[in-house]
Every structure is written in structure tokens, then in C-alpha cells.
């Protein structure tokens, strides 16, 4: 990785840009939620698990931006996919998500949505692996 001071600063700026994009996306989705379904929105905002998930995503997004145009970018993207899959599986914990809203307990079986989520993640993972192989092949040709 050929770097000098300016390049590192540029990488840091791009990394921060990616991380801020993730956080802005989360905040925008949350404000939309608070307007449409306030009780669900408040539950998500106050949930430490969701906050940890977003912070994790932002860190991986920063790493992906910082390591752009190197093979390590694909490591960061792959890591982010495994992190999201792991958090999703951990969150499900018996296929159900439960929350209490105004003394009423609501439990949803999200196994079908989880399957869809994991399916999307597997396709993304395949894309990242192929992109990494393509990057290495191009590098070798060059």
C-alpha cells in the first residue's frame, strides 16, 4: 500500500464519509419510524443492541473506505457481512423477537424475514469474494 501523508488523510476522510453515511441512514430511518410508528421507533432508539449494531456497521464502513483500492477493502466488506449475519442470528434467539409496548407483550416470529436477510447476505458475500478474486487477477495481469 503506497501511502503518503495526503493519501492517508484522503483515506481517513473517505472512511469517515462512509461511516457518517451509515449513521445518517440510521437516523433518517429512525425519524421516519418515529413519525409512522412512534412506539416501535422509541423501542429501537432505546435498544442498546441496535446501537451496538449501528456502531459496528459504521466501524466496518470506515474500514472499507479507509482500505479502498486495496485487497483489504474486501476483507472489511466480508467482515461487515459476517458481522451483520452474526448479529441477526444472535438477535433472533429462538426465531422470535419480543418487545413490551404499554404493558402489552408483542412477540413476532421473524424466521422468514431472517431467511430473506441471510439470503441477501450470502449473495453479497459471493459478490465480495468474486470481486476480491477479480482484483487479485487484475493485479497479477498488471
Amino acid at each position, binding site marked *: 500500500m503506497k501511502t503518503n501523508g495526503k493519501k492517508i488523510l484522503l483515506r481517513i476522510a473517505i472512511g469517515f464519509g462512509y461511516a457518517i453515511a451509515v449513521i445518517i441512514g440510521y437516523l433518517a430511518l429512525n425519524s421516519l*419510524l418515529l413519525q409512522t410508528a412512534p412506539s416501535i421507533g422509541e423501542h429501537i432508539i432505546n435498544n442498546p443492541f441496535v446501537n451496538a449494531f449501528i456502531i459496528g456497521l459504521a466501524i466496518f464502513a470506515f474500514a472499507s473506505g479507509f482500505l479502498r483500492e486495496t485487497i483489504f477493502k474486501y476483507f472489511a466488506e466480508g467482515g461487515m457481512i459476517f458481522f451483520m449475519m452474526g448479529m441477526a442470528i444472535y438477535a433472533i434467539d429462538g426465531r422470535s423477537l419480543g418487545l413490551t409496548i404499554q404493558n402489552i407483550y408483542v*412477540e413476532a416470529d421473524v424466521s422468514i424475514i431472517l431467511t430473506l436477510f441471510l439470503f441477501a447476505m450470502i449473495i453479497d458475500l459471493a459478490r465480495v469474494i468474486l470481486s476480491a478474486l477479480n482484483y487479485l*487477477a487484475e493485479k497479477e495481469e498488471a
Partner: protein
Amino acid sequence: MKIAIRALTIASVAIWIFFAAFSVTLIYSAGAIKVETSNFETRLDANRMMLFLKIQMLIDNGGLYDLNDMEIKIELYDWYESLLAENITFVEIIPHGSKVLLTSSLTADLSDHSELIAVSSNPLLLRYKIKLNYADILPIKINGNTTLTLQGGGA
């Protein structure tokens, strides 16, 4: 390899757009469902030692998805958690954009619970368990409880 990467990128973006749109509409629709419960109508027949309870529930499905296979189970308990009566109401479908008025009636035989009639005021516990299939892919269970006071015949 580049064609495969492009195909996977297109598939991945399409799935994520579908997933995001579905999640947003699902949460929006959940917020658009309104449930109103009317006052409980209780009637005590001291001679026959029977308690009649009628509950009306108005469900306004203002969301974008249907509510399917809704099962509402209502259980009435005395203050010592002894089951007095239960009722199950089943609704096959509440289409989106429609309102449905549900009526559940409970009849409790109080011949073994004569103290409920003797005492002037008795707190009762009403538990409800609702099972439904939301948007065809999301089975949901809702549990809650509320208390109501039965005016007995005693002084």
C-alpha cells in the same frame, strides 16, 4: 468473472431495495393498525350464579397488509388466579383498509365461587392472547391483561 460480479451486484441491490421497502411498509402498516376496546359489559345473575361478560373490539386495519388467521383468546380469572371462563374468537381475515367489529362473550358459572357474589366489589383479571399472521409471513403473538371490578350483591 466481471459479468458474474455485475449480475451478483444487480441481484444484491435488488434484494436490498426490496428488503428495505418491505421493512418500511411493514413497520408503517403495523403503526396504522388501530384497536379500540369498548367498555366491558358485565351482568351478574345472582339467582343463577352466572356472570355474563361482553367485550367489543374494533380493529381498524389501516395498513397495507392483511391480518390473517386471527385468534383471540380471552380468559377471566378471579383475584386468586382461578380460571372462571374463557372464550376463543377466530377471524379468518381482516383485509387492509377495512374495519371489523369483534364481539366476545364470556359466561362464567360462579356456583363454585359464591364469595364473588357475596362481596360487594371484586377485582377480576382479564387476560387476552392474540395470535395472528401478519402480511402472510410474520406470525405474531400479543399477550396482555387488564383488571375489571365486578359489583357483587353483598353489602
